[in-house]
């Protein structure tokens, strides 16, 4: 089959990325998307591909402070940008207050949409540390959750706001008693 995109006549381009605080240099084809680089070249599988056309919000990452769907960003456009994915939210062995809050209210069922929802929440709270309900709903309106956990998302965001206001940014995973992570 002569699919022009599969031919190797397109040169590799070197792209420098700073992802979750680490610097990378990767070689990408001009048509490769940021999501492909994050998932398959850097192994950051929290970035989920849902629709692949900017409608579901499962693949959102924060790029230079902007919330972007990584399926609609060409990798070359991310050159010299700072990117945050779910993996970079908390140091090894810790959970970020937003993650803890989403666990506490048992906000997920299948969990596929959650990395996107948490990243969108992080972006919202960076902009506005105490958002009104309406603002939470507006920002999360682009994050599709087919299990329909939307109301718990709002609850979780409000709990995360509370944690952050109390100065609790990171939680030790070992100390999460009674959380779903520890099996009851």
């Amino acid at each position: 089959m002569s699919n022009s995109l599969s031919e190797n006549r397109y040169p590799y381009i070197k792209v420098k990325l700073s992802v979750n605080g680490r610097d990378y240099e990767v070689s990408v084809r001009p048509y490769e998307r940021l999501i492909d680089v994050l998932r398959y070249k850097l192994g950051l599988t929290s970035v989920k591909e849902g629709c692949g056309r900017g409608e579901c919000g499962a693949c959102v990452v924060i790029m230079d402070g902007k919330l972007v769907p990584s399926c609609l960003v060409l990798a070359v456009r991310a050159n010299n940008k700072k990117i945050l994915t779910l993996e970079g939210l908390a140091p090894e062995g810790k959970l970020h207050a937003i993650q803890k809050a989403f666990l506490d209210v048992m906000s997920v069922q299948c969990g596929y949409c959650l990395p996107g929802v948490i990243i969108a929440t992080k972006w919202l709270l960076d902009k506005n540390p105490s958002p009104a309900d309406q603002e939470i709903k507006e920002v999360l309106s682009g994050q599709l959750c087919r299990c329909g956990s939307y109301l718990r998302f709002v609850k979780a965001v409000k709990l995360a706001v509370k944690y952050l206001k109390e100065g609790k940014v990171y939680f030790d995973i070992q100390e999460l008693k009674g959380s779903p992570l520890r099996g009851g």
Partner: protein
Amino acid sequence: MVLIRDDVVRPKAVLDLWPLRKELAFIKREVDWVKIGALTTIEEICSSFLVRDYRYAGFPDMCGLFATPYIRSLATIGGNIGAAHPLSDATILLLTLDSEVKLVSIRGERWVKLDKLFLGKRRLAKDSSELITEVRFKEVPEKSSTALLKFDRRWGHSMGYVVAAAYAQIKDNVVREIRIAFDSMGRPFPERAKKTEEFLRGRRLSEDVIEGACTEVLPKEMKRISDYRASAEYRLELSKVLLRRALLRIKSRIRGG
């Protein structure tokens, strides 16, 4: 990107215009004009002076309804126009401001009225060597304002069954100037409702006149389609309702100054 993914288009090459943002991302007032660079994102428009001026209150209307935050950070005004798609919120609003689009090619540049730009869905009155670089409109006078309304079953990421926008200058309750645009008047691209405009121009904006414009004049010049999302009857009914709401919203915005 979406069209390539859906195999609607198969380009031989794709040119990334993003590096041109240094030149083509701006919103500025210059003499009598408001000028917006083609690569200005919707998010940037939503944090510009346009959303703080009652005359351009249609912009904050549009910002709240335009897709989602993560699309607003990527989507550009040039892209919204160039997509030549009926449900292009920003384009519909720009039609009511009688905007012009700047097309630049190796042969030079030219300005085209936005309402002369569309030929069909995804078809523009420009050749492929011409690039949309700017959209501009004349500053509107005092005692005038804009509004944009959209109807869908959900707020987030809504495409809209109907999108309506209007600009009006109202003095002593008389319509001095008016421009109305819908996502479609019959053809598959955004257009002005010129007969309804003509009917309203010069009249007192009373309950009867609004009623007449929405129920008598508009349905005569508008032809709606039925598809899997909504029926033609429903779309027409929504169009009448949204036009009425847009006019009342503009009226109260002008009064509120």
